[in-house]
C-alpha cells in the first residue's frame, strides 16, 4: 500500500527532521560550541545567574497554581455537564471553548484594562478600588491563565466521566455495595488518571505560554522562562547564547514532565470504551442543585468571556480613552480606520489569514502522509515518526522559534528562507503539525479493518482505494485539523514577534505593537475582528464534527 516501506519512511523522516529536529540541534550546537570548539561554559553560565533560579521558581509556582486554578473551574464544570440536567445543553461546550480559543494576550489585555486603576471596573463600581491592588499580583495572573486553560482540562474530564457512565456503573450497581463505595472504587481511580494526565499537560502549557506573562506578568514584575528567552533576544543588550541556553533548559524540563506523563498514562489508563453506549437517562435535579449549577456556569462565563470581551469591545469603540465610559464617547472610528483599504491593521490581518491558510494546507498534506504511515503505531519506525511529529506539542513554541532562527541563520547554509514570508509559514507548520497529525490519526483509527478487507476484495487498485474510500472517510478529520490549525495560527504571537520579515506584520503582532507604540483602539478593533472570525470558525468546526458523526453512525 501507499505510505509503506523504507522509502516512505525516509521521505517523511526527512521532512520532520528538517522542520522539527534541525532547529533543536541548532540550539544544542549554538549553546555548546564557541568558534567551533566545545564549550560547556555557556550553559553553566545560566545557573550562575540568581535571576534564572527566580525565573525557574516563578515558572514552577505558576504552573502549580494554574493546575489548582483550572481544577477549581474544570472539575465542577465536568460534573455539572455530566451529572446534572445541564447535560442536555450541548451549546455550552462550544461556548466553554471560546476562552481557550481567545488569544491569551488579548484576554489578559482585556483583564488589565478592566481591573487597572481608573479601569472599567472602577468606572462602573467606584467602591471596587480595593480589588485592583490584590488583582495585580500572582493571583491575577493565575486567574487569567486558569480561565484561559480550563476548557482543556474540562473536556478531558468530561469525556472520561461520560465513558464511565455506561457499563462500568451498571456493573458496579449489580455487583457493588453502596453508591459511595462504587464511586470511591470505580469512578475515582478512572477520573484520577485522566486528571493527572490533564493537569500535567496544563503544567506544560503554562510553562510554554508567552502571551499572558508578556502582558500581565511584565506588569507585576513576574518573569518566566518564555519572557526571559524573548527578552534576551529582543531587548538591548542582546544575549543570544543566553537565549539558546535557556531554551535548552526549558526544553529539558518539558521533556522530563512529558516522560512522567507518559509513564502515568501507560500505567494507569484503562480501556473504558466498551460496546455499550451510555444510555441517556433523564436527570431531574433538585431546585438548589439546578440553581447552584447555573450560578457556577454563569460565573465562569462572566469571568472567562464577559469581562475580557467587554473591555476589548469598549476600548475598540472609545473615542477619547481618557474620558472613560461616558455617553457620547463612542464611535466606530477605529473600525473605519481598520477597514480603510491599505491600512496597516487590515494588511496585518490579511497577512495572518494568508499565512494561516497556507499552514493549514501544508500541515494537512504532511499530516495525512504521516498519519497514513503511522497507522496504529505498531512498528518501531512508526512509533519514532509518531513521536517526532507530535513533539512540537510538548515543546514550547518559543524554543522552536529560537531554534529555527539559529538554524536558518547558520553561516554554512547555501540559501536561507530567513527574513522571507516562507519562514513564517515554515515556523507555523513546525509549531502546528501535531494538530493535523492528531486529528487525521484519530479519524484513521476509526476506520475498521473490514473496510480495507472489502476494498481489497472489490477494489481495483490501491490508488483507487485511497482516492475513493480512505480519503473521503478521512476528509472530516483532515478538515477539522485544518480549521484547528487555521484558528491557532491566526493567534500566534511569539513567532511573529521574532521572525517576521521587514514590512510584514500579522494580526497578532499588530495588536501587540499598538500597545507598545501606537493606537490601542485600532489594535483592539483588529482583536475583535480576529475573535469574531475565530468564533464563526468554531461553530463551523462543531457543525462539521456533528455532520461527520452522523455519517459515521
Amino acid at each position, binding site marked *: 500500500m501507499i505510505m509503506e516501506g523504507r522509502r516512505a519512511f525516509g521521505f517523511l523522516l526527512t521532512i520532520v527532521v528538517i522542520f522539527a529536529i534541525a532547529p533543536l540541534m541548532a540550539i544544542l550546537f549554538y549553546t555548546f560550541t564557541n568558534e567551533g570548539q566545545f564549550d560547556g561554559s555557556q550553559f553553566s553560565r545560566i545557573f550562575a545567574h540568581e535571576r534564572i533560579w527566580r525565573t525557574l521558581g516563578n515558572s514552577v509556582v505558576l504552573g502549580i497554581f494554574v493546575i489548582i486554578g483550572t481544577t477549581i473551574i474544570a472539575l465542577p464544570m465536568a460534573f455539572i455537564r455530566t451529572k446534572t440536567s445541564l447535560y442536555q445543553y450541548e451549546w455550552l461546550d462550544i461556548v466553554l471553548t471560546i476562552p481557550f480559543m481567545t488569544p491569551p494576550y488579548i484576554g489578559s489585555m482585556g483583564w488589565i484594562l478592566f481591573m487597572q*486603576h481608573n*479601569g472599567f471596573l472602577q468606572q462602573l463600581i467606584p467602591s471596587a478600588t480595593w480589588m485592583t491592588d490584590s488583582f495585580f499580583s500572582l493571583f491575577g495572573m493565575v486567574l487569567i491563565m486558569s480561565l484561559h486553560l480550563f476548557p482543556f482540562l474540562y473536556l478531558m474530564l468530561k469525556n472520561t466521566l461520560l465513558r464511565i457512565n455506561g457499563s462500568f456503573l451498571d456493573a458496579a450497581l449489580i455487583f457493588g455495595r453502596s453508591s459511595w463505595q462504587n464511586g470511591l472504587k470505580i469512578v475515582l481511580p478512572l477520573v484520577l488518571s485522566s486528571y493527572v494526565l490533564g493537569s500535567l499537560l496544563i503544567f506544560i502549557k503554562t510553562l510554554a505560554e508567552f502571551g499572558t506573562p508578556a502582558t500581565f506578568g511584565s506588569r507585576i514584575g513576574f518573569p518566566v522562562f518564555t519572557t526571559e528567552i524573548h527578552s534576551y533576544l529582543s531587548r*538591548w543588550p542582546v544575549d543570544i547564547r543566553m537565549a539558546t541556553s535557556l531554551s535548552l533548559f526549558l526544553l529539558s524540563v518539558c521533556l522530563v514532565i512529558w516522560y512522567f506523563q507518559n509513564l502515568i498514562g501507560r500505567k494507569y489508563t484503562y480501556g473504558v470504551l466498551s460496546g455499550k453506549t451510555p444510555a441517556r437517562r433523564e436527570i431531574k435535579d433538585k431546585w438548589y442543585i439546578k440553581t447552584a449549577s447555573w450560578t457556577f456556569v454563569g460565573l465562569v462565563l462572566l469571568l472567562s468571556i464577559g469581562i475580557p470581551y467587554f473591555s476589548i469591545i469598549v476600548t475598540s469603540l472609545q473615542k*477619547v*480613552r481618557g474620558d472613560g465610559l461616558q455617553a457620547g464617547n463612542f464611535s466606530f472610528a477605529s473600525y473605519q480606520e481598520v477597514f480603510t483599504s491599505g491600512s496597516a491593521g487590515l494588511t496585518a490581518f490579511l497577512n495572518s489569514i494568508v499565512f494561516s491558510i497556507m499552514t493549514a494546507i*501544508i500541515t494537512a498534506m504532511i499530516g495525512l502522509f504521516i498519519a497514513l504511515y503511522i497507522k496504529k503505531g505498531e512498528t518501531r519506525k512508526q512509533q519514532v515518526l509518531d513521536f517526532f511529529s507530535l513533539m512540537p506539542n510538548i515543546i514550547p513554541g518559543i524554543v522552536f522559534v529560537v531554534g529555527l532562527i539559529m538554524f536558518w541563520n547558520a553561516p554554512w547554509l547555501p540559501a536561507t*528562507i530567513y527574513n522571507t514570508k*516562507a519562514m513564517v509559514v515554515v515556523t507555523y507548520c513546525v509549531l502546528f503539525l501535531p494538530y493535523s497529525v492528531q486529528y487525521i490519526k484519530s479519524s484513521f483509527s476509526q476506520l475498521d479493518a473490514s473496510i480495507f478487507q472489502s476494498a481489497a476484495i472489490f477494489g481495483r487498485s490501491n490508488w483507487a482505494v485511497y482516492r475513493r474510500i480512505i480519503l473521503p472517510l478521512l476528509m472530516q478529520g483532515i478538515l477539522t485539523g485544518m480549521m484547528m490549525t487555521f484558528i491557532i495560527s491566526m493567534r500566534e504571537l511569539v513567532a511573529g514577534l521574532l521572525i517576521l520579515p*521587514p514590512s510584514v506584520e500579522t494580526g497578532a503582532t499588530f495588536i501587540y505593537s499598538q500597545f507598545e*507604540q501606537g493606537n490601542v483602539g485600532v489594535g483592539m478593533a483588529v482583536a475583535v475582528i480576529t475573535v469574531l472570525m475565530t468564533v464563526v470558525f468554531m461553530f463551523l468546526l462543531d457543525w462539521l464534527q456533528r455532520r461527520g458523526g452522523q455519517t459515521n453512525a
Partner: protein
Amino acid sequence: MKKRRFKLWATAGILLTLALAGCGNKEVKETNEASAKTQEEKVLTVYSAGPDGLAANIQQAFEEKTGIKVEMFQGTTGKILSRLEAEKNNPVADLVVLASVASMDGLKATDQLQSYEAAKNKDKINSDWSDQDGYFYGYSASALGIAYNTKNTTQAPRDWSDLAKAEWQNKINIPDPSLSGSAVDFLFGYTAAEKTAWSTINTWKKNGLQVNGANKEALDAVITGEKNATIAGVDYMAYKAKADGEPVEIIYPTSGTVVSPRAVGILKDAKHVEAAQAYVDFLLSDEGQKLVADAYLLPGNKDIAVKNRAALDEIPQLSVDWMGAEAKQLEVLTKFTDLFR
C-alpha cells in the same frame, strides 16, 4: 502499480512545491533581481524605531519622490539592535533609524556603519546630534518630560523632585529603559549631568515608581488614569495624544531635561548604498524635516518651524555628550534594572 505510486508522489510533490512557492514567490523574484543586478537600487530595507505614523509618512513621500521601494521593519530601538545582532550572518537591512544616538555611536564603534559625508543639507542639521565623520545624522529629536493626566492632577509637577511627594505616591511610572531607547538616554543624560540624580531616582522608587513597558504603554497608563504621571515621557507622543483630545499635558522640568536625538545611519553591509544615501538626503531635506515637525518631533534643522509644541530653545536642557556613551549607558541600564528587580 509502480506508476500509480509515482503519480501520487508526483501530485503531492507538485502541490507542496506550489504551496511553498506561493509564499516564496516574492522572495524568488527578489533574488532573481539581485542576481541580475539590473534593478538593484530599487529596493531599500529600513529598520526604523518609531514613531509609527512618521515612519509611514516618510516612507510614502520618499517612495513617491524617488520611485525606490522601501521595506520597513518597525520596532523599538532594543528590538532593532537585537535583530541586527541575530542577522549578523546574513544581513538584510541597509539603513537604521534609532531613537538613541548613543546606540548609533555604538554601532559605529563596532564597525557596523559606513560614512556618508557627502549628505546634502548636512550643514543645516544640529551638529551636536550627528557624527563628525558622517556615520550618522541626528535628523530629529524628542525632549523627555513629565507627561501628566490633566483630570487627575490638581497641581502640575514642575521639577523632577516633585514626583517624590506624597501626592504622587503609586501614581508615577517610567518607560522600561531596556525597551525604550529614549528612556536609556534619559537615565544616562540625567545621571551624568545631575549629581543628585540617583538619589532622586531612589526617592521615586520609594514613592512607588512603576517600570511600564515601551513608551506608549507608559503614556497609555497616564491617558486612562491608571497612573497620573510618566517620567521621561517622550514629548511627541504626549502632544499627539493631546491633539487627539486625550486629557494629557507635558511639562519640561525647570532644572532641565534630556533632549534625545534620533539618528539615521547606513549599515556597512548595506546592499543598496545609493538608495540608502537618497533616504538620508531625504530625511535631511526641508521636505523631510517638515514631516518630522508635523509628527510633533523636534527637527534636526532649527530653521524648520514647529507647531503646537515647544521649540528646542524653549526647553531647559541638561548638557549631555552622546559620543562614546554606549558603554556608560549599559552601566546605567544595569544599575537601574538591578534597582527595580
